């Protein structure tokens, strides 16, 4: 019979060591045959030599015991091995999951972060490091490092918003630009939410930071096209109006002046040509009527016989117009903030005209801030509802206008701009008043001007 150990458990690697140990135990039992079997059978075979048969029997018994132990051993090893395998699989899966997670972050260009409020520690995912242009091995991040990377124009604003969110335990959504150590500018969109402990205390903020640079740059070029379009369409509407006035009025005026000159000359001739002069004077009367008809038509145009009024949400119009000028704002480094009253009731008004008024006020605000270099450029647009109507305000932090100018800005052909026509605010006022509303301007305490208009729910005198 071959030695049981030589058969072995047949298991490779680390399991062999375990089996060897067990075998060693049973060996020691076997080696003790001279001592340990004796007390077991002293009475049966006292001093006599143990028969070989007995010995063989004994050995076989022992062997089967050993075999039994070995089997148990093998089972134990097997279960251990299975557990080990399971553990490895688990680890593999975890590793794979981590890889997928990192890959997902890479593909979506979204890094994640967590900021512990009590320890003040900030965690960044690898992708977050990559987006911010930092090496995760050699850089430590902190709240301070993070905010220092935000573009100087937006830093204070973003930090203030973040602190406000933390104080209130609110979600935090923000978009900002960062300046990477290599000088590259990236556009980041961040979402974060607070995590609360068992007893409701704020533990940490976890969030994402998505690199939306390409998207924004695409939008920027698209946006600038849109802004140009808006500018163009605005110029076209006002320009068309001017062209209509110019052409339609200048034509009869030119005829009128020429006829008057002709009449004078026919009368001064020798002999005077009364017939010719009379014809010229008749044409003068006709042309004067024509000019005054043109004016009446233009008045009707602005007065709004053609406008289509329907109940509209002014907030949505504010959003539309902001979207139109977004790239213009960005190009001029202007931060826009909209404080829109969520409980706004709809107001009966003409969408296109309202867009025109808002666009006009916003473009004026932008122009007022273009030359401002020092202070942050802020455009604040607000809507507020009261019992009788809606008030919209457009506030800039621009150069500001003095009181004398403010009193005149709504007058037609009054302008403070070198290339202005002085017609935008005059038309805005005409539109607002046609809706039964009122428009006015006030200087801000610090700098700049606020333009406000108010539309009543029930005031539509032009209809």
């Amino acid at each position, binding site marked *: 019979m071959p030695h049981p150990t030589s058969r072995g458990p047949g298991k490779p690697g680390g399991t062999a060591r375990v089996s060897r140990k067990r075998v060693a135990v049973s060996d020691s039992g076997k080696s003790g045959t001279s001592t340990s079997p004796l007390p077991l059978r002293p009475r049966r075979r006292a001093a006599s030599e143990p028969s070989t048969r007995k010995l063989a029997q004994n050995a076989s018994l022992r062997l089967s015991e050993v075999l039994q132990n070995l089997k148990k051993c093998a089972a134990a090893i097997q279960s251990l091995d299975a557990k080990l395998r399971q553990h490895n699989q688990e680890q593999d899966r975890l590793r794979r999951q981590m890889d997928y997670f990192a890959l997902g972050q890479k593909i979506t260009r979204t890094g994640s972060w967590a900021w512990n409020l009590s320890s003040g520690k900030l965690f960044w995912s690898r992708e977050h490091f990559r987006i911010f242009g930092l090496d995760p091995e050699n850089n430590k991040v902190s709240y301070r490092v993070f905010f220092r990377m935000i573009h100087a124009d937006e830093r204070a604003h973003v930090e203030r918003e973040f602190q406000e969110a933390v104080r209130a335990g609110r979600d935090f959504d923000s978009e900002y630009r960062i300046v990477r150590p290599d000088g590259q500018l990236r556009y980041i969109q961040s979402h974060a939410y607070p995590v609360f402990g068992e007893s409701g205390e704020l533990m940490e903020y976890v969030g994402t930071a998505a690199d939306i640079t390409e998207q924004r740059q695409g939008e920027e070029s698209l946006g600038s096209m849109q802004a140009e379009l808006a500018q163009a369409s605005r110029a076209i509407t006002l320009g068309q109006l001017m062209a209509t006035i110019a052409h339609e009025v*200048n*034509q009869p005026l*030119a005829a009128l002046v*020429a*006829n008057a*000159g*002709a009449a004078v*000359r026919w009368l001064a001739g020798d002999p005077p040509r009364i017939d010719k002069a009379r*014809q010229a004077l008749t*044409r003068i009367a006709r042309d004067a009527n024509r000019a005054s008809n043109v004016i009446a038509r233009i008045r009707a145009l602005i007065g709004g016989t053609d406008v289509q009024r329907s109940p509209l949400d002014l907030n949505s119009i504010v959003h539309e117009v902001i979207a139109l000028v977004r790239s213009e704002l960005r190009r001029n480094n202007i931060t826009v903030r909209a404080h829109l009253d969520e409980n706004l009731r709809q107001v009966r008004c003409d969408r296109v005209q309202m867009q025109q008024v808002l666009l006009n006020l916003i473009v004026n605000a932008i122009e007022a801030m273009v030359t401002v270099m020092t202070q942050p450029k802020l455009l604040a647009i607000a809507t507020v509802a009261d019992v009788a109507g809606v008030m919209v305000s457009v506030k800039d932090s621009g150069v500001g206008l003095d009181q004398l100018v403010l009193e005149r800005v709504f007058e037609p052909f009054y302008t403070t701009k070198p290339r202005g026509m002085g017609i935008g605010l005059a038309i805005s006022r005409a539109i607002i008043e046609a809706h039964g509303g009122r428009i006015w301007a006030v200087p801000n305490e610090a700098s700049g001007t606020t333009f406000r208009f108010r539309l009543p729910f029930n005031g539509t005198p032009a209809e």
Partner: protein
Amino acid sequence: MKPSNAVVYVVDDDVSVREALASLIGSVSLNVECFASPQEFLRRHSRDGPSCLVLDVRMPGLSGLDLQRELTRTAQPIPIIFISGHGDIPMAVGAMKAGAIEFLAKPFRDEDLLDAIRQALERDQAARGRRAELARIRGRYAQLTARQRQIAKKIVEGRLNKQIAAELHLSENTIKVHRRRIMERMGAANVATLVHLMEQLT
């Protein structure tokens, strides 16, 4: 000053303007012809005496600037006074660069238009005189023989009879005969006049 055959052409699509300008121009004893479109002008106008064109810029179909280009392209030089209902500066600059006499924004003062018309007619008359003179010189030059043209060129270059004779392998006498004939046919009393006439041909 005002030749009786001078004509002012008015091209404007607005009938009020046409009537008024016809009356105004007529009141200073100038002939005037009105057209409602550039196409009509190109079809119908006849130019015998001095003339000028009072042209509206913006018209349906061909614009005033198109007409200006067309007249330049077909070598029908005529002084143009633009009148426009839009004070469009780039357009005015373009028109002036292309040789317009004046660009008047409607409504313009009647004197301004009449002054511009007078200036235009004078310029056209002068241009006509120059063109007639040039035609006269060309006609005379055409009467010279090939040999005489060759010699005339050398005279203008300042060569003496002796030099010309040597260069052309002719006798000095032959050159003298040709020279006299050249001066007669070109109507030049002296070499200076001949130089002046020949200059205008180039």
